């Protein structure tokens, strides 16, 4: 692009700084040619259009109040979010036990931070994750170590959103690897089974799967059997995630040169070991961007569980907004929830970019 691209390498031979590009006069920058003029005018117009929104969100907004009726005129009612913050984040979880979902979210954050660097990836980290998930579920359920039991119907809010996203991806991933390997297998039965599973699940909308899991499945089970509603929802999300991840991983597998596996065979490395240690790591490296994409989609997909009555963050926000004391602050609730989703998804996508650069630079070394 410009000279700035080489700046870091020459930075130590100060003080001869790289020459700056010549300044264009402002007028020429904004109205230099037809395209620039059109863009300037339309951007200005858009900015003017945004003034009412800005007024609503900032200037006319009620930031803090004890009296909900002050929110009735005009601006955004952020005081509502402050009042309902606990409910939107923790849903119907008993307030006395609130430290438990809080700790769960802390654990998730800590584990994610600990897993950021690829240097730490390995069997130990997987074991740590399994132990951590077990600890989180124990914390949420309770019933041991003097913690009051909390049925899954009382779980809610952000912890449910995070747990559903994490578990559906985590449980879906191993399945996805098997499905992807199966689909590329030379044996006809595993290939057909994988193909059918993937195509069937990908051919159904997630909403349909959720309905099957939450309404039809209990009717098909023998009387007296009932699987937990949250568990059924998680199962549907997992199957969905697995099918999509499988296709992504298959793309990576196809990108690994056939010579790799032939070389492994020539060295006498048994088939599964060759796949596990040679083919898969290379395949996964190639598909980091689409994997991230699937992860982001799954985080957002968890909000669909509201149609089957699981109290995730979005459901909690919707219920909070129906409180008649406040004057229908739907927009504020949705904006707040959208912000949280954005932070999560933006974090994932930034991380993936960082990871991609790192992984690439290592493979080029």
């Amino acid at each position, binding site marked *: 692009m410009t000279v700035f691209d080489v700046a870091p390498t020459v930075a130590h031979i100060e003080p001869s700084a790289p020459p700056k590009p010549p300044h264009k006069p402002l007028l020429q920058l904004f109205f230099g040619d037809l395209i620039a003029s059109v863009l300037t005018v339309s951007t200005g117009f858009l900015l003017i259009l945004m003034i009412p929104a800005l007024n609503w969100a900032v200037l006319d907004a009620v930031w803090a109040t004890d009296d909900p009726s002050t929110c009735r005129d005009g601006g955004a009612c952020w005081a509502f979010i402050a009042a309902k913050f606990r409910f939107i984040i923790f849903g119907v979880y008993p307030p006395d036990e609130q430290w438990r979902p809080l700790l769960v979210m802390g654990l998730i954050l800590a584990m994610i931070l600990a897993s950021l660097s690829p240097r730490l990836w390995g069997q130990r980290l997987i074991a740590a994750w399994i132990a951590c998930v077990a600890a989180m579920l124990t914390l949420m359920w309770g019933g041991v170590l003097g913690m009051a039991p909390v049925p899954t*119907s009382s779980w809610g809010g952000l912890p449910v959103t995070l747990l559903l996203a994490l578990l559906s991806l985590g449980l879906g991933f191993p399945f996805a690897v098997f499905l992807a390997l199966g689909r590329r297998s030379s044996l006809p039965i595993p290939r057909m089974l994988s193909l059918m599973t993937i195509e069937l699940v990908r051919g159904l909308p997630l909403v349909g799967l959720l309905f099957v899991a939450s309404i039809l499945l209990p*009717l098909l089970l023998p009387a007296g059997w009932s699987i937990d509603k949250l568990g059924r929802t998680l199962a549907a999300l997992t199957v969905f995630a697995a099918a999509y991840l499988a296709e992504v991983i298959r793309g990576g597998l196809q990108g690994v040169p056939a010579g790799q596996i032939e070389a492994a065979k020539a060295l006498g490395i048994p088939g599964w070991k060759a796949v596990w240690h040679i083919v898969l790591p290379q395949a996964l490296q190639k598909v980091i961007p689409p994997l991230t994409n699937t992860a982001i989609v799954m985080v957002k997909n968890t909000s669909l569980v509201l149609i089957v009555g699981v109290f995730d963050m979005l459901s909690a926000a919707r219920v909070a907004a129906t409180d008649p004391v406040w004057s229908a602050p739907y927009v504020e609730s949705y904006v707040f929830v959208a912000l949280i989703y954005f932070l999560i998804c933006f974090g994932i996508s930034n991380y993936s970019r960082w990871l991609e650069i790192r992984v690439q630079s290592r493979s080029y070394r």
Partner: protein
Amino acid sequence: MKNWKLATAALAAALSATAAHAGPTLDKVKERGRIVCGASQGTVGFGSPDDKGYWTGLDVETCRAVAVAIFGDKDKVEFVPLSGQQRIPALQTGEIDILPRTLTWTLQRDANGINFTTPTYYEFTGFMVAKSSGVTKVEEMTGASVCVQTGSTTEVVVNDVSTKLNLQLNPVVFDNVAATRQAFFSGRCDALITDAAALASVRATQSDKPDDYVIFPATKYMDALTPAVRHGDDNWMDIVNWSIQALLNAELYGITQANIDELMTSDDPRVKRFLGIEPGNGKALGLDDKFAYNIVKQLGNYGEMFDRNLGAGSSLKIERGPNRLFSDGGLMFPMAFQ
């Protein structure tokens, strides 16, 4: 779609037939230590969690009354939030024990695997219009445009009313509740039609100036919102029925949460039977003889419950109307508590 419905119904019938041979619900509930109750996904006044996540509302408290009858504790209930489509399968498959979720008593539902207990709320379809329009009854609505939700029973009502009274109403159809309501408040149509109780709650929650709107009935027909139980466990149905009857009878006898302990010395044989001083009622149902006393002590009578959740004591301010006792000119009819 039809085949799917038939298959579901057939499955449900097969399942409910086997459920009859399973152990009674009461045993299961006692073993579990709590009843499991189907709840809505947040309908203010009927069932929604408050800021602390504590479930409140008329439907919710009906469940709490049953919990008090069995365990003497209104908090021994687990509420499972269910969507409209999920609620009946959830009851049929035993995921929940009672379904009080603004459920209208209809022939099709009654015949297909569930039993209705005692109505807890009567409602009629209503219109809401702006006060400034000057319209106060259906006959004056000639040519009005009406915001209506597609696929709902209210769509049928609009057509029926329009044809019958020759009003030439223009239905403006939307595919979801939120959009329908928003369209009305933004002035897209002259009137909004839906259940009158829901209208009252919409007016209280979603309009900037609730006093600018009036609500009036659309037809003379009513729906009875009634908690339901599964087919095949008569004892359980009796328990739910008489937990609700205890609430209604308490109001008839003038027993309230506040005065119930004073009435323990009452000479009235009806009151004595109700409070369990004269034993027999509870035992007949397999419950504690003081179950009715416990219900009123913890939750109050039906009138108090209505007032707290829907009426003057709530932010919804819905009038008792048809939900008054028969003795006050309403439809609520307590059965003999003996």
